[in-house]
């Protein structure tokens, strides 16, 4: 849990005062929309179909209970009683009024939250594994490094007007839960032969109109050099990135056109000239930032307490939930609890103010006051004692966030789509909702196993459809909504782009198509525990294509 210091609090407070003045001058007409728009974007304020949208940054997906309560308050007081968690670990409010924004921002500032750098051509929220600091396979807490970089790039004058947005992710586990390889830049922690920890640096990932998986340009970067190297990459991008064509302005295009090797050389040249300057990180600086992270005073507990086993034996629903939503913790006697925000017929990632308040209370009682937001649009309680699992489950079940469908076919990632977003071509949420209805049977969902569906309402790919096991992309043809279907994408350490299986299908048929794909998988799999994604890899998409298009 990162603790803000005086500088952080002052900065956020001053930002609110500044924005309050800007809003007042816009409402009085002193500022035109052309003058005001870049200013509001710098605070994460968008104009969408029905209302303004406010995007609040949740650095590396970590929330305190006080912060979650404030998010609930904002939802209640300034919005329509709910918030939406995004694929970049942020939260969005979809019904905000401009005239009330300064007050909402002042409330958020009181708990250290803001919308800075959630929009515009700047470095955006730096994301990481939602299981940071508790995952058994982690080397070190990646959030410390996300914070080191965050402090440096926030309001950095040289990187406030880049060719386009820039998204960074940091990882430290063997298994990538943060989709590192679809980011503009990713840092993956490794241990080298000498036992030192450092970072593999990858650049040029990204989805959208032209999708790429990131390439490694630095196999091992020492911790001391993190800031100077990140600076060198940003400078190289700032210098060579295209500003003449918005569709070619991301770093992925630059890396692709130069080639990873040539790009790496440019970065190296820049880096050599700055690496021993003021950006070189000494141990004290790192330790100072690391010290602002507080870790729980875990109790000495045993794994598998008898009351847990007893509860699993006596309650089938609880047992199913433990088997699905509870993951191993690096500290004995503890567990990581995932809260599914994917109820049947619901909007993926939406949480009501009431739910947020209950989750905040549960965090205080059972998770040392901490909540995590995952890019897959679920939440987590990262520090739950195993003996508390029955009580936690009952409370989560009562508010509808204990559906045991995590990582299953109904655990869908979807962007807001045309129901909310002015960029969209088609709706995504009703598609997700219908799929959750078709696969409401948990036995069926469990039999299908791990299966990631990603839905985007336009080519901007906020739903990450390119890297879904099943990817669904909404397009518009002659005023009607159609959907392209891809198979075989992966977002993890084996990141792959999916393959289009055929012509786009109309809105009313998408759920049928998903049922056909699921049925084909069951027929084609070599054994019940061959994962969907492995079956697709083994057979290719042709048998699925045949099945889907045979009757269409």
């Amino acid at each position, binding site marked *: 849990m990162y603790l803000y210091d005086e500088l952080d609090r002052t900065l956020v407070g001053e930002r609110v005062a500044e924005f309050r003045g800007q809003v007042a001058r816009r409402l009085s007409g002193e500022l035109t*929309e052309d003058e005001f728009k870049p200013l509001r974007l710098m605070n994460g304020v968008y*104009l969408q179909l*029905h209302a303004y949208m406010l995007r609040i940054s949740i650095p590396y997906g970590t929330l305190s209970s006080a912060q979650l309560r404030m998010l609930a308050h904002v939802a209640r007081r300034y919005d329509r009683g709910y918030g939406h968690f995004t694929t970049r670990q942020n939260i969005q409010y979809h019904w905000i009024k401009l*005239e009330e924004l300064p007050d909402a921002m002042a409330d958020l500032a009181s708990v250290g939250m803001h919308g800075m750098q959630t929009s515009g051509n700047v470095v955006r929220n730096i994301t990481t594994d939602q299981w940071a600091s508790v995952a058994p396979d982690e080397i070190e807490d990646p959030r410390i490094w996300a914070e080191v970089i965050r402090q440096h790039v926030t309001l950095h004058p040289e990187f406030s007007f880049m060719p386009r947005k820039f998204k960074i992710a940091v990882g430290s586990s063997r298994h990538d839960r943060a989709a590192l390889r679809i980011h503009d830049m990713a840092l993956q922690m490794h241990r080298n032969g000498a036992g030192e920890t450092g970072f593999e640096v990858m650049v040029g990932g990204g989805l959208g109109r032209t999708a790429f998986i990131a390439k490694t340009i630095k196999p091992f970067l020492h911790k001391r050099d993190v800031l100077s190297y990140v600076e060198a990459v940003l400078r190289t991008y700032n210098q060579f990135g295209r500003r003449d064509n918005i569709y070619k302005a991301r770093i992925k295009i630059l890396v692709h056109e130069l080639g990873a090797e040539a790009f790496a050389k440019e970065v190296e040249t820049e880096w050599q000239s700055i690496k021993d300057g003021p950006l070189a990180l000494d141990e004290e600086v790192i330790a100072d930032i690391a010290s602002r992270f507080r870790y729980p005073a875990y109790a000495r507990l045993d794994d598998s307490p008898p009351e847990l086993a007893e509860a699993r034996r006596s309650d089938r629903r609880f047992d199913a939930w433990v088997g699905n939503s509870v993951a191993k913790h690096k500290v004995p006697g503890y567990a990581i609890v995932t809260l599914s925000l994917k109820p049947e017929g619901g909007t993926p990632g939406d949480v009501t103010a009431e739910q947020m308040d209950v989750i905040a209370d549960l965090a205080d009682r059972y998770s040392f006051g901490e909540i995590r937001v995952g890019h897959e649009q679920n939440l987590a309680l990262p520090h739950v004692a195993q003996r508390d699992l029955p009580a936690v489950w009952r409370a989560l079940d009562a508010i509808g966030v204990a559906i045991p469908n995590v990582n299953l076919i109904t655990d869908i990632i979807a962007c807001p789509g045309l129901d909310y977003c002015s960029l969209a071509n088609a*709706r995504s949420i009703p598609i997700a909702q219908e799929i959750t209805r078709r696969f409401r049977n948990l036995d069926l969902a469990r039999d299908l196993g791990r299966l990631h569906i990603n839905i985007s309402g336009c080519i901007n790919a906020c739903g990450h459809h390119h890297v879904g096991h099943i990817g669904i992309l909404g397009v518009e043809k002659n005023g009607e*909504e159609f959907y392209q279907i891809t198979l075989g994408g992966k977002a993890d350490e084996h990141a792959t782009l999916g393959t289009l299986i055929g012509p786009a299908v109309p809105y009313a048929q998408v759920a049928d198509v998903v049922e056909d794909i699921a049925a084909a998988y069951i027929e084609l799999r070599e054994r019940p525990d061959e994962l969907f994604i492995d079956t697709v890899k083994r057979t290719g998409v042709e048998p699925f294509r045949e099945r889907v298009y045979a009757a269409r």
Partner: protein
Amino acid sequence: MTSPLQQKLKINGPVVVTANRLADGVVVYRGEGGWTTKLDGAAVTTSAAVAQELLAAAKADGLHAVDAYVAPVQVTEDGRVRPGNLRERIRSSGPTIDLPLHALRVKADHVPVR
């Protein structure tokens, strides 16, 4: 539905000028010398010249509404004005989905479109 803000002015049927209210982002339509939240109160035209004028007046009124553009409508036999495509239906009536449970404050004139 490419953002209408990037489209050239082409009139293929009846249109209105629409925007979002500055203070709260609510969808509004250009009527006689002002803005209305009711599509039935909007100035409808099939003339590109008139549409251009409405648009110019709308854009000049940046104090009250922003991001004005020309949107298609349908006019029914009994003279009622309806949104001309899915995007405008959604802007007019709200998201086509139920908002989360416990979200009590749904506007009275926002009827979900299925």
